[in-house]
């Protein structure tokens, strides 16, 4: 019997908890942790969510397994119908998209993301590009941010490239403040911006000022370790909780849907191999 889960499975459960029943929710491409979180949410806490698959735009698909590329027929098997690219973005622009999931190679204190390029002025590294994130970060009513690469170990020359930074070199996806510091509210966007950030080290929300704030850590990570791996001064919630693990059925579901373990490719090997007691195990100890 399964008694423990991986970091990826913990993250999937945490991402799924940000989805409300009845929301229209979309995931982009290159995001297997999020793809799995949407399917978990649909089968547990949010049976009435409208799940729109990234790239195929299939509505409520039931894929037989997760493929390592999103625009693949395997990902939209069982869909009720398909949206056009323009329809999906129109839904968001008109305020019908309840939640979107976004990430970046840099995520700053206001929840802005950079998926475009590193370096200011001269580009030192071209990133893959943001897809539709720039539009959806403004139009989706709420946004969950995630990264599985919060940990920033030094490279061969001892330099650390932080994922969580004070300011992004380029703002691909808008958080709570624009490039010149303009508060988001002044733009009059339909969406309210990011309200959660899930990483492999902790869970963050955004305070009244729109600044990211640590609210929970995983059981095997200390607050100091999170501080050390973060490239900005951290704000902390009054109490730092322990991220709740999923139950056994959820983990069984994830493993059945992702037999190729595509989602583990989002994590560093050292993080993919961490493990946690399941919620059921914790409950048994309490009883």
């Amino acid at each position, binding site marked *: 019997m399964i008694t423990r889960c991986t970091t990826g499975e913990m993250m999937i459960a945490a991402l799924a908890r940000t989805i409300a029943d009845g929301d229209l929710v979309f995931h982009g491409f290159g995001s297997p942790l999020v793809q799995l979180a949407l399917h978990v949410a649909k089968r547990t806490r949010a049976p009435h969510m409208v799940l729109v698959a990234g790239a195929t735009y299939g509505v409520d698909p039931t894929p037989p397994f997760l493929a390592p*590329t999103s625009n693949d027929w395997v990902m939209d098997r069982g869909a009720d119908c398909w949206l056009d690219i323009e329809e999906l973005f129109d839904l968001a622009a008109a305020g019908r998209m309840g939640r979107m999931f976004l990430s970046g190679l840099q995520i700053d204190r206001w929840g802005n993301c950079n998926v475009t390029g590193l370096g200011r002025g001269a580009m030192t590294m071209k990133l893959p590009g943001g897809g539709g994130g720039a*539009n959806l970060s403004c139009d989706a009513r709420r946004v969950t941010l995630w990264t599985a690469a919060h940990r920033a170990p030094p490279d061969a020359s001892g330099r650390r490239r932080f994922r969580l930074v004070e300011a992004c070199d380029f703002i691909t996806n*808008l958080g709570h403040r624009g490039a010149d510091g303009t508060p988001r509210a002044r733009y009059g966007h339909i969406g309210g911006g990011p309200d959660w950030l899930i990483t492999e080290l902790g869970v963050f929300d955004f305070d009244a000022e729109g600044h990211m704030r640590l609210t929970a850590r995983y059981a095997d990570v200390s607050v100091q370790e999170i501080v050390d791996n973060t490239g900005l001064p951290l704000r902390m919630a009054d109490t730092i909780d322990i991220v709740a693990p999923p139950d056994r059925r959820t983990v069984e579901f994830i493993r059945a849907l992702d037999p190729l373990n595509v989602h583990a490719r989002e994590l560093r090997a050292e993080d993919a191999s961490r493990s946690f007691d399941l919620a059921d195990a914790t409950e048994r100890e309490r009883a």
Partner: protein
Amino acid sequence: MTAAPIHTRDDKRVSLDALAEMVPDNAVVAVGGGLSSREPMALIRALLRRGVKGLTVVGSAHGVDIDLLCAGGAVSRCAESYVGFEQDFGLAPNYRRALESGAVEMQDNCCYTLVQQLRAAIQGLPFLPIRSLRGTSFPTLHPEYKRMICPFTGEELLLVPALAPDVALIHVQCGDARGNLAIQGPPVADILFAKASRLVLATVERIVPSATLREMRGAHVPYFYVAALAEAPLGAHPTACYPFYTYDRAHLALYHDAARQGPQAFAARYLDVFVTGAPRHADYLARIGGDATRARLASWRDGDEAWRNLYREAAPA
């Protein structure tokens, strides 16, 4: 604005090379398909063999198509919204090098902005507004975007100019001799591209009788948008074109490994073998393993286990 053309010839079938000859240097080119599916790869290889230069590429989420065009020196500006291999192989090496070196100018776009720009062209309008994007850094890459105060509501909007690509390159499953095109599965932005572009060039897995297309409930791209088409079986390889074939993971692994090792290794191990080294599409098909490869990539139909196994394949030794 000059009037957009329509194309009414009864028989638009040409050779793949003739199709490639119709793409002028320095054209703005919309490439169809997306990520690892239904990209017009045979046509792209033919373009590289003819030595096309100075293209501006526009599109949504792409992979090996744009990476290969960058490696072949065909691109001068890139206005895609994503170029990569997702979790399977990660960043696109040739694309990255071309943009970091400055050989290709970065004009990254985003999906809805592109949609609205294409829709403006389709409707014969000079621009369309969007509410999103303001506050991001994209306007620094696109000084042509303008802001306006809406005369009805008083809110600030961003105006994005019409985009009518010079050429759309599209690969679909079926078409007829007149150029009607039927797309199975997600159309991505292909229908928008076809309607917004001045010259639509298509490759198809199969040219079928018009009656067959009507039985398939008609064309997604009506013939009068399409200037010319060529039959190119496995024409999207190494990307997928269901229901005929999945993407060729082993070939993409070989591609990515060669690209990762630098321009010289990529030229020797890939371009010289699969592009310039295969002067006709038939040579390419022979080089990738011909009927055996076709059968292997069609084995997804044998059930979920067979389908899964196609994603476990590693690069050939």
